[in-house]
């Protein structure tokens, strides 16, 4: 009796599952083209997920919702900011929704994990994130990197610092103790030597640290001209907040890749004032494509776009342009077309370096405004420099791009 009821319940739940899960298998030549948007809507990067989805949706909308006569279908999935969830969602969408193109992810640890699936399943991944491994030691033919290279970021930011503060000499670095932070530190050493800065001290802090006063006490005692933050996201927000509580206004705070415009609102205006920050994107960028993007985005969502939205918009737009150029929605054709293409993107003239799949693009340096100078609540900063020096080829670890 009991077993019968167990079996019945099992069958019932099986039926329920079949109803809710998806049955269609491989991509067809005629159905809609599925583009995945695999981003975090929960977890540490929860703020980014919805913004990425907005950018992608706008790109599809402005393209008329169709590509080569086929509908475009966006698949939005939550990667929770966790690599294990990211690969789960990507693999699932590939095998049961016929997804052949996707944006992923916002966090580079997640993106690098997804890249393994992308190479294996031969699907195109347009990634964003800070890790240089995307286009270095773990480069792959099916993965493209939208964000700037850490070298480009460091170079642009310190070039500006050199120009803006000719009298400043000494730099103290605070570095997140994981691959991304250490990569920034490596390039800080390279660039600082060229520009005549002296690195007088460095402290590594563990990822996710919430107490920075113990490091900052050392910084304040060392009296450097510049505090260089090789750390990002929530860690950087906390460090800047706590540094501002020391009231030390002789030390300039410079962050090459520290806070994107999306996260600037996390700091109170008096904490941000005077910060010099490198940016992958800033809404004031003066290009025709960006002006059109900002206007449409602001109209649709009543808020200016940030890095997350711009990445998604521009990456989807580039994929669609490449499909048109290739007159094909086959992954191999689209990748070849992207490798040769040059287009007017939101950041300016853009192309993909075929040797390592790094987006060749400018990087932006902004200086944060005082509360009094802000024209509206999202007028955080002004762009003070634009520069796009690519990583020197001899420092790149991408050996060879495999055949498609």
């Amino acid at each position, binding site marked *: 009796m009991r077993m019968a009821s167990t079996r019945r319940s099992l069958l019932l739940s099986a039926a329920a599952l079949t109803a809710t899960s998806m049955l269609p298998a491989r991509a067809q030549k005629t159905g809609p083209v599925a583009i995945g948007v695999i981003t975090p809507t929960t977890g540490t990067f929860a703020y980014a997920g919805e913004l990425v989805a907005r950018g992608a949706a706008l790109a599809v909308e402005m393209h008329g919702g169709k590509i080569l006569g086929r509908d475009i279908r966006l698949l939005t*999935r939550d990667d929770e900011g966790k*690599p*294990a969830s990211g690969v789960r969602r990507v693999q*699932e969408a590939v095998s049961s929704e016929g997804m052949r193109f996707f944006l992923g992810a916002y966090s580079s640890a997640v993106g690098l994990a997804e890249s393994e*699936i992308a190479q*294996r399943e031969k699907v195109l991944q347009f990634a964003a994130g800070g890790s240089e491994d995307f286009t270095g030691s*773990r480069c792959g033919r099916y993965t493209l990197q939208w964000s700037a290279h850490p070298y480009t970021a460091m170079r642009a930011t310190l070039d500006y610092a050199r120009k803006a503060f000719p009298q400043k000499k000494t730099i103290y670095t605070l570095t997140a103790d994981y691959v991304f932070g250490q990569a920034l530190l490596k390039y800080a050493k390279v660039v600082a030597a060229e520009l005549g800065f002296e690195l007088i001290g460095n402290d590594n802090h563990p990822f996710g640290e919430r107490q920075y006063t113990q490091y900052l006490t050392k910084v304040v005692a060392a009296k450097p001209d510049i505090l260089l933050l090789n750390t990002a996201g929530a860690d950087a927000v906390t460090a800047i907040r706590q540094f501002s509580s020391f009231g030390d206004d002789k030390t300039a705070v410079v962050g090459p890749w520290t806070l994107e415009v999306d996260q600037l609102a996390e700091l109170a205006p008096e904490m941000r004032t005077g910060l010099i920050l490198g940016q992958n994107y800033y809404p004031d960028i003066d290009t025709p494509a960006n002006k059109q993007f900002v206007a449409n985005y602001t109209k649709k969502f009543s808020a200016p776009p940030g890095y997350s939205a711009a990445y998604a918009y521009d990456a989807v737009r580039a994929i669609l342009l490449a499909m048109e150029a290739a007159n094909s929605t086959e992954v191999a054709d689209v990748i070849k077309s992207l490798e040769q293409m040059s287009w007017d993107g939101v950041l300016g003239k853009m192309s993909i370096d075929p040797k390592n799949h790094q987006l060749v693009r400018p990087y932006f340096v902004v200086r944060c405004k005082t509360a009094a100078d802000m024209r509206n609540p999202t007028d955080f900063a002004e762009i003070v420099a634009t520069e796009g020096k690519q990583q020197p080829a001899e420092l790149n670890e991408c050996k060879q791009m495999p055949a498609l």
Partner: protein
Amino acid sequence: MNADGEPAGVSDAGVSKSGPHLVSIAKVACVIAAVAVLPLMMPINIATEIMIFGIFAMATNLLIGTAGLYSFGQAAFFGAGGYAAGFLLAHGWTSLPLVFGFAVVVTGLLAAAVGLVSIKRVGIYFMMLTFACNQLIYYAAYSWRSVTGGEDGLAGVRRPVLELPFVGAIPFDDNRVFYAFTAVLFLVAMAFLVRVVESPFGLVLAAARQNTRRAASLGYPVAKLQLVAFIIAGAVSGIAGALFGMLYRIVPIDSVHWFGSAYVVFMVVIGGTRSMIGPALGAFVFIWLQGLLSLTWSRWPLLLGLFVVATMIFQPDGLLALLTKRPAWLSGRRERSRS
């Protein structure tokens, strides 16, 4: 193996030995049928994950349900198994017995070390010690980049090859073959763990769960047996972790994060601790529900939290009991008192 909601251990073994043979056969058939049907209902990688986390949850249930050891650090062994197997597979050693053997040895030793530190402590102390060891192993994995890849994960993991005499080499590159392989391991793990629970060893563990002092005063080396159970659970979790690394060909850093430890305890308790089917059901519900809820609303963890709270309040014996008998709140005899 008993789906009737009797406590595992003493009475459990009694029932299945004296009970009609047919019932056991029907249960086995049911489990096998469920495992066979699963990949038809959902994407194959999700079905494979359910098998993998099923193994992980069943191993954890040996501690929670049978031995009464509330470990909060099992992800350490899951992750370590993934790293151990993944390291060999990423460096060209693809022999299946070698890879799993290495994962079992590494996680067994690690579990022995953690067990030695924590097994004699009870209650929250035990939970906290296993949790702390989990944290330390996480930081070790995070910092030991040359082996684990740090926060970017151990990439380049290949799937092993099974060399069989007369048959030849069986590769697992096809996801369906890999599912079949995982499912077989799942069934083997279930059979093995049920045997362990029903063995005299399991009976002593269960007796010690109910009354440690009495079991000890009867002359059983309780702490030693609990340590052995901890090592078994760790090694089986290591196998699950190894499979996880092979599934996505990467061992991500979060496979060793303590969230994994918390989630596996969720799976066990939500499914039901009184048999090995419960945790497997818990793994199924948990993974499936996460996928379903995350499609509905960007604040979906709230729904997951509500589900967890409601399950614990209305179905404290786990969801398996819901399938097999009328829930307590329907029968109207509820006893509630506070300790």
